[in-house]
């Protein structure tokens, strides 16, 4: 699975969680760009990603994630 495909699937997760089909995410997208992206949504996003890609995160994995790009990096690392 290439990076663009991962980004596309993560984007669908964002659209579902924020109930907004117009959301477009990039590597630079972070919590300041999307209204309502708070701690609860961050957890919901990570849980949905775990399910979508059949991977599991530890606290060390998810601590300090600052934007979508770092999250995609993490997914790629988990899938490799």
């Amino acid at each position, binding site marked *: 699975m290439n990076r663009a495909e991962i980004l596309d699937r993560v984007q669908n997760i964002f659209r579902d969680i924020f109930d907004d089909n117009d959301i477009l995410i990039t590597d630079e997208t972070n919590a300041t760009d999307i209204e309502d992206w*708070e*701690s*609860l949504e961050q*957890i919901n996003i*990570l*849980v949905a990603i*775990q399910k979508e890609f059949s991977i*599991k*995160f*530890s*606290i060390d*994995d*998810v*601590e300090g994630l600052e934007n979508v790009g770092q999250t995609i990096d993490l997914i790629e690392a988990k899938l490799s």
Partner: protein
Amino acid sequence: MSIEEIMEKSDRNGVTLVVGADSDIGAKLIETISTDVIAHYYLSKEKAEATASNRDNLWSVYGDLSSVPGITEFIQGVVAIDRHISRIVHLPSSPAKPNRITKFDPNRYLREINIQVVSAAMILQAFLPAMVKDNFGRIAMVLTSYCIGVPPKYLSEYVSAKYALMGLMKSLAVEYAGKGITINAVAPSMTETNFLSTLPEFEIESTAKAHPMGRIATPEDIVGILGMLLKQDIEYMTGTIIPITGGTAFF
């Protein structure tokens, strides 16, 4: 008299009713009670009866506490056993599920209120009068450390149900003070139980990592204090909430 002497002193007879005995804390509690026990279960009869195979003083009663008819049926099942109940531990609850108030579901909320609060009120309504006649009763409830100080975000349904239970506990403690009956509660922080199945592992790891003791609570941490609240000699403490948090929240 030291705590050790109090704990060792022989205790008053009577049956202990454990409501929510098929929870991890309930099952662990029953292991520590050698006297007669009536164990309420909903999801797992096996768990509530885990220690029943080698004892003849444990009865289990099914009860769906999510509705008034279900609670009534459960109470009738307990009454049918025809034993005097001297102690009640009340710990039924659904797992806390984070949600914004915009996702509030009134039916889910009413179900939770029934499970936690209405069941406690109806069970006490049924069994407190006999305790008053006997001039002895010990009631222990399980709240949450979220009842201490500032609660976390997104748990309004869970937290408000626990606050309602806390209000019931305090009100009844006043109502029954001086009648030989104590009504107290424990307020544990995040505990290693099947309740955590609704939370991602990294969230649990995060809580443990941030805790001064480097771990979350275990059922054993809770059971020891619940057992203390059931002792005959603990008679001068009522309406109290004991934090079991390892130092993360207290009064």
